[in-house]
């Protein structure tokens, strides 16, 4: 029995409620069948920006923000429709069918490639988040990127980024999901490396791309395992197989398929130990960081786990993988949170905070808390975008990322200050801001997982759930702690930088205000026991037949809520004591007097070093030498060979031209001339010669005639 059982009464939802809803879902309508526009509009406008953006009055920004605004409007309408009546719809267009396969009496195609669009609770939530956050970030980016040398190109890549995410989210099959997945990867590479003149930025882009590629490769393998053992890449087919029980071929390969797909999710959602790319991705422009950390890219991994949730939840399939998921998520949420404590770059503090929050989401998914994980994704999108945009506003004013160049900005930038504090409090999980509700739901779900009915107890791991719960609460403490540090160092104390900072223009502050509004109210749609709009919209009604897998709090779990809030409050208070009063030097403050902790955290647990010295460096030299050799020998050989062949071919053509063609022409001229010379002799002008020939001809004709007649008669 869990020690946390002592906390108080535990009331959690049961399955029947969701099953009731499942009957009256909206399954058709013009709004749903036209939803293919959601990914297509940004993708098309990306090209429009590339080709015509520079000629437009706002140099392509209007197309970018227009595409996201369209998605936002569509997403908002669908979101509220879904919350009131529930939607499930799937449209698709078959692109190609390869091979044939006998399915019982029917003969179908072995592999069907489809382009489709999924409109259900999960994807609608993502449309909403990508659209709304995307629009606000795009508006903000107009101010932030003003004067950039590649302004139009930036918005083209940015729109591709959002469009790729929408392709991913709308995918009804694994193939299309991978297409969107890679589009997001490519766009992120373009955007992180936007300032490619800076060597750090370009190598960060490559680092992000390569780290992601590890996950991508695993995802691809996982998709192949799952797709081939099911015989279809469609999520609905996969879910049907899972619903039909564990006798299918899928269950035989489920563990490795589940691990591979989860490694894919780890890459995109930056889970330990593939998290190293995300902090370095801060080299990109701040709006990119905001969108990447809030709505697109890093949410893709959590989304993928959510999309495949029954696969991980049903006994006999990849349920064993949940141990891996919980372990990875827990490690990530705690370890990366600690690193955020010692960062000087304000964006890196937020980046590590994102890693930590992603750890929460993944842990929740591993603990079987589908709704809680997605709800945290939903609220986190708003306050993390807010925090990044606020940081961007500060950076815009101070022209430095380092908090050691900031301080006292509260007086210069009141709007940025107040919205940033709202975001920080929401992230720390203070009642009644958005972060509190979602984090509390995760904590409650983990506690439920450790309770008698929970998943982990059934698997003999009650102690693990307890341990995870302790770590998660400690993580909440750390979150509040480092956010207090960031706020203190940035907005309080004395200004330590150069020049006179000033508030950002309205185009940047209005999105901040809007996001602050969302950060306050977003949590209110899913207060346990009071409102369950999010649960109804996203959770229970989606997986018909899988409701029993998903648990969410029916009423507030007061014990956990209290402990979580206390942890956050303690974090803020201690942080206030250490940093706000500005007593010690920063380095001393960061060390907390614990020996070796500071260097350990500063070096990020030596993971980056391990990768660098363990993987990159040993590989880089031979690879560089190999590439050099390849370049010097193979490519040059090919180029020289091509040159040689071209020369030889030229020579051949020359010879052909000179000998064959000219020869033919000269020969025909010669023959004509020779023939003319011979024939000229006939034209002697001597009548008798002509007459001789005439007679000879006549004689020959007659002779021929006579002989011919003689032969026939």
């Amino acid at each position, binding site marked *: 029995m869990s020690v946390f059982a002592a906390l108080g009464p535990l009331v959690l939802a049961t399955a029947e409620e969701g099953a009731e809803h499942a009957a009256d879902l909206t399954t058709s309508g013009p709004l749903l069948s036209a939803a293919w526009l959601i990914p297509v509009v940004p993708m098309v406008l990306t090209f429009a920006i590339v080709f015509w953006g520079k000629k437009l009055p706002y140099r392509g920004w209007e197309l970018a923000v227009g595409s996201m605004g369209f998605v936002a409007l569509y997403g908002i309408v669908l979101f509220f429709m879904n919350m009131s009546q529930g939607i499930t719809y799937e449209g698709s267009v078959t692109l190609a069918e390869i091979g044939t396969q006998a399915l019982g009496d029917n003969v179908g195609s072995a592999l069907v490639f489809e382009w489709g669009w999924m409109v259900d609770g999960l994807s609608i939530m993502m449309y909403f988040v990508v659209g709304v956050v995307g629009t606000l970030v795009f508006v903000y980016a107009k101010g932030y990127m003003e004067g950039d040398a590649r302004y139009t190109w930036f918005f083209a890549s940015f729109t591709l980024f959002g469009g790729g995410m929408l392709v991913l989210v709308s995918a009804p099959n694994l193939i299309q999901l991978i297409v969107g997945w890679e589009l997001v990867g490519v766009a992120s590479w373009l955007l992180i490396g936007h300032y490619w003149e800076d060597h750090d930025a370009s190598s960060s882009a490559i680092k992000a791309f390569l780290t992601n590629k590890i996950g991508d490769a695993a995802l691809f393998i996982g998709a192949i395992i799952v797709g081939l053992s099911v015989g279809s890449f469609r999520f609905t087919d996969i879910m049907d197989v899972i619903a039909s029980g564990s006798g299918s071929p899928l269950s035989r390969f489920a563990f490795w398929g589940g691990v591979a797909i989860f490694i894919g999710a780890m890459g995109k959602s930056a889970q330990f130990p593939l998290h190293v790319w995300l902090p370095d991705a801060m080299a990109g422009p701040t709006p990119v960081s905001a969108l990447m950390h809030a709505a697109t890219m890093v949410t893709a991994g959590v989304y993928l786990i959510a999309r495949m949730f029954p696969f991980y939840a049903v006994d006999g399939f990849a349920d064993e993988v949940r141990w891996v998921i919980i372990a990875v998520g827990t490690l990530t949420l705690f370890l990366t949170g600690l690193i955020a404590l010692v960062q000087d770059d304000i964006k890196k503090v937020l980046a590590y905070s994102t890693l930590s929050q992603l750890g929460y989401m993944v842990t929740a998914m591993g603990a079987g808390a589908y709704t809680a994980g997605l709800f945290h994704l939903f609220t986190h999108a708003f306050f993390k975008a807010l925090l990044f945009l606020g940081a961007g506003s500060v950076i815009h004013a101070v022209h430095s990322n380092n908090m050691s160049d900031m301080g006292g900005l509260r007086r210069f930038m009141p709007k940025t200050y107040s919205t940033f504090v709202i975001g920080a409090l929401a992230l720390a999980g203070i009642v009644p801001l958005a972060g509190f509700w979602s984090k509390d739901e995760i904590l409650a779900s983990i506690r439920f997982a450790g309770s008698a009915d929970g998943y982990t107890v059934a698997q003999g791991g009650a102690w693990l759930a307890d341990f995870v719960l302790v770590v998660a609460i400690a993580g909440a403490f750390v979150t509040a702690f480092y956010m207090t540090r960031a706020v203190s160092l940035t907005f309080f104390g004395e200004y330590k930088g150069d020049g006179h900072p000033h508030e950002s223009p309205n185009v940047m502050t209005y999105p901040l205000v809007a996001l602050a509004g969302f950060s306050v109210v977003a949590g209110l749609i899913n207060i346990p026991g009071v409102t369950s709009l999010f649960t109804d919209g996203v959770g229970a009604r989606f997986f018909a037949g899988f409701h029993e897998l998903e648990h969410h709090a029916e009423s507030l779990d007061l014990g956990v809520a209290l402990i979580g809030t206390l942890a956050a409050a303690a974090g803020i208070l201690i942080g206030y004591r250490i940093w706000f009063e500005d007593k010690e030097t920063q380095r001393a403050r960061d060390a907390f007097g614990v020996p070796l902790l500071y260097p350990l955290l500063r070096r990020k647990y030596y993971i980056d070093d391990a990768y660098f010295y363990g993987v990159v460096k040993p590989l880089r030299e031979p690879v560089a030498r190999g590439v050099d050799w390849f370049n010097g020998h193979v490519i040059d050989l090919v180029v020289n060979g091509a040159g040689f062949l071209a020369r030889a071919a030229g020579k051949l053509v020359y010879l052909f031209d000179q000998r064959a063609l000219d020869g033919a022409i000269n020969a025909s001229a010669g023959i004509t001339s020779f023939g003319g010379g011979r024939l000229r002799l006939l*034209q*002697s*002008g*001597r*009548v*008798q010669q002509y*007459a*001789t020939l005439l*007679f000879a001809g006549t004689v020959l004709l007659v002779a021929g005639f006579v002989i011919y007649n003689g032969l026939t008669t």
Partner: protein
Amino acid sequence: MLISQFIVLGAGLFSLGVYGVLTRRNAVLILLSVELMLAAVNINMVAFDAAWGDVLAGGQIFALFIIAVAAAEVGIGLAIVLLIFRNRQSANVDELDLLKL
């Protein structure tokens, strides 16, 4: 009745005519040889008519036509030769090569 001797005679006459036409230089002699050839044809005409002719005796009538035409031809031919001789002081066909130019 055998007609072989007439045909042989016609062929011989014709050959003589051809030989004359092809070898003689003098235009008058060439015309004369042409007449020989016409005469050979006439002999053939009459001979064939006598052997297989019908009541109209077309072969013999044709021979009369040929004699008339030959007379007209010789008349014109000799006139031409006379004019050539007058203009060029020669009736030698070898020298009549104005067409060659």
